[in-house]
């Protein structure tokens, strides 16, 4: 469609496994400005494969910014320089001919590197398993319209529910805190009438697992909000802190 090809120098993190040391490796590539960032990596990999070399391991799936599978740190920023998009939505026309691009995995103690640019984010699932749900079984629920929910409430809940679980918030945070992720789920349910019966139990359980897994604390730097591809608001963290405080106040277990 548009424009001349770009000649780029890539510095990509290569690491053969969780226990081995990694390092940046240089690559040169010529790409169309219409290519997406991940298509650039596809092309590089195809070239490496045709030369019998091992391609760069990286993950992606939907390539529409909704599944949350992809996530690279590009020139120091999770998901790259353009706000509110995932890595897969970044296009090469945002770079200039001759640029050098640094590509790294998400870095956090709780997200160990598995290979090259792939990290293990299963900690997010463990937090969800602890309380990221409303306890209802299939069947025997009331008619959908029996539960009235004001439009604004549904909308605010949806803002929080839009989280794609990519982990950019953790990668962006100097403490590797997962508070934005956890608070988005806590908020979605705390706002809705269906989520109210177990709101305190939920927040306590999720926060406990979050802490146990080695995610850091929130020190209000707002880096998570700035890098979140879905624009999840930091206000969710404030809400989670309130929920957590209330839960502790109402708790029947005395902590000494």
């Amino acid at each position, binding site marked *: 469609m548009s424009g001349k090809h770009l000649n780029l120098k890539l510095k990509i993190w290569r690491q053969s496994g969780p226990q081995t040391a990694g390092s940046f490796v240089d690559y040169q590539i010529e790409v169309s400005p219409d290519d997406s960032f991940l298509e650039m990596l596809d092309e590089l990999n195809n070239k490496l494969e045709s030369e019998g070399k091992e391609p760069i391991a990286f993950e992606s*799936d939907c390539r529409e910014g*909704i599944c949350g599978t992809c996530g690279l740190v590009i020139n120091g920023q999770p998901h790259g320089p353009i706000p509110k998009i995932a890595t897969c939505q970044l296009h090469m026309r945002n770079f200039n001919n001759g640029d050098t691009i640094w590509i790294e995995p998400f870095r956090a103690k709780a997200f160990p590197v598995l290979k090259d640019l792939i990290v293990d984010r299963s900690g997010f699932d463990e937090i969800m398993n602890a309380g990221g749900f409303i306890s209802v079984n299939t069947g025997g629920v009331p008619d959908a319209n029996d539960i009235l929910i004001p439009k604004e409430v549904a909308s605010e809940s949806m803002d929080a529910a839009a989280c794609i679980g990519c982990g950019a918030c953790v990668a962006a945070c100097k403490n590797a805190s997962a508070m934005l992720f956890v608070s988005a789920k806590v908020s979605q349910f705390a706002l809705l009438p269906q989520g109210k019966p177990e709101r305190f139990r939920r927040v306590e359980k999720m926060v406990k697992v979050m802490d146990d897994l080695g995610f850091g604390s929130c020190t209000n730097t707002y880096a998570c909000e700035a890098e979140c591809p879905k624009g999840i608001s930091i206000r969710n963290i404030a809400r989670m802190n309130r929920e957590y405080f209330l839960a502790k106040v109402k708790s029947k277990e005395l902590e000494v």
Partner: protein
Amino acid sequence: MVKLDSKIPEGHISEKWTNHKFNMKLINPANKRKYDVIVVGTGLAGASAAASLAELGYNVKAFTFHDSARRAHSISAQGGINAAKNYQNDGDSIYRLFYDTVKGGDFRAREANVYRLAEVSNNIIDQCVAQGVPFAREYGGLLDNRSFGGAQVSRTFYARGQTGQQLLLGAYSALSRQVGLGKVKMYSRREMLELVVVDGIARGIVCRNLVNGEIEKYSAHAVILATGGYSNVFFLSTNAMNCNTTAIWRAHKKGALFANPCFTQIHPTCLPVHGEGQSKLTLMSESLRNDGRIWVSKKKGDLREPNEIPEEERDYYLERKYPSFGNLSPRDISSRSAKEVFDEGRGAKGQEAVYLDFEDAIKRLGRKAIEEKYGNLFEIYETITGENPYNVPMKIYPAPHYTMGGLWVDYNLMSNIPGLFVLGEANFSDHGANRLGASALMQGLADGYFVIPYTIGNYLAADKPEKLSVDHTEFENVKKQTEDLTRKFISINGKQTVDDIHKRLGRIMWNKVGMSRNENGLKEAINEIRELREEFWKDVKVPGDDKDINQTLERAGRLADYLELAELMAVDALNRNESCGGHFREEYQTEEGEALRNDEEYTYVAAWEMEELGKWKLHKEDLQFEYVKLSTRSYK
């Protein structure tokens, strides 16, 4: 000896499911924990099935090749989910949803299944709301609805443009709860590579651990496949990168019949291909066709910028050919018309694209109104293409999107292999030859939440299958075969990359087994696919080793299966000497170029049994239409 028995219950269509539920055998709650069930895939169908079965007390083992169950491709669905709630008081009913779906599927679906789908659609909405899915609401607090193609009522529930995401996260949260309770054991980063069948009964699966490369064995009393569709056979499609046919294809090779493989849906409004490096295609919501006008130049090879082409030299071909439906003509018809004008050499700026133009709508309604309606879609378009659709018409082109075909199942969603159940897009059951918008989410959740929890109990109670140990010789054999196959991909050490071969397969499929097909093209395609398959096995290059994360190896295995499925798709398309829904045979059209069904000879489900590679035996399941009268669709 394969015998097709659809097991449709007796009685009036509105009573079949109710009666069947009563007649099915039950397992008492204390005994359910003695049964293990494997669920492969954690999309809408798989996650909802795994959670619901665990809630009932079964021990569930759930498998996904993703890092997390939440990544499944159901998450990408945008528009909404249908249900016959009739909240809008506009005349909707279970019967009408059933009727629209049978007709939309061009009379190639099983009536009884579709009726059940419509029947449980209302339970799905209730369930999702109870789980905390934040559906769109009215100011009064009630649920909002929108309308969708192929229906005259507003029955579509939605959560912004992210309905699939919200429904999947709902099912995923139910699943997470069961994982936390220990009733589901979650196996992520595992790819199912074989079904284990002993004495004709499904006993388990063999997987590859995608992190350390180990081939692992799992056994259970029943196996459920909910592994999605196979549009990626075209290489470029709206499906996610990792969607593949391997689970159902390898089950097919173990004896499961594959039904209507040629029924594929090509979605008309996707972003066109930008170049050789393109990795997938992005869908733009069909709703844009409400206000956008679709056109190309009247002249062949017109390379002018769209704004330089004067009004009188533009051909608004859908408005011209289908004056009453115009730009809102159904998916199959719109897609084919775009291909026609491109084939005539009239594609937008010579490319495989047509224009979708909002100039008139902006003049008529004002830029602000268009922004309110479509702002986010325009942004997506600009992010991807770098062009601003307020100033320049969008370029769109059809792309493979959904596969109606899949493994054959009976009314209980069991394949012809006892103990093997197939749910969601992976089965063939409910959409006939064409799926209506907002019905895929409905089917996935219907199967998982409300059908399989009943029918699997009946199978386990009536057939009383024994669980085999994974030390059984057959498990060992299958494991060994799988290891050999995995190593074989690496040992070929040829010259061509997996993607290069996959792209060539995609071209064959798109040109000859795509939007319109003809006898010669299909015969050529079969030969070309066979040649390409041979080339693959001689000349593919898979670097790295098998005891490590090796994404090339994963893709090689999936491509090997596509190279076989592709042939069966062509064989099925060649067999079906009629045009219906997404299957358009150029030889079978009316004088005006519309699809011409042949109800006399082809009112059947084509279920294929593989005898050997390249040789399939056709089994026909005749379809009876007792409640919806066979009629011709017309959109003039």
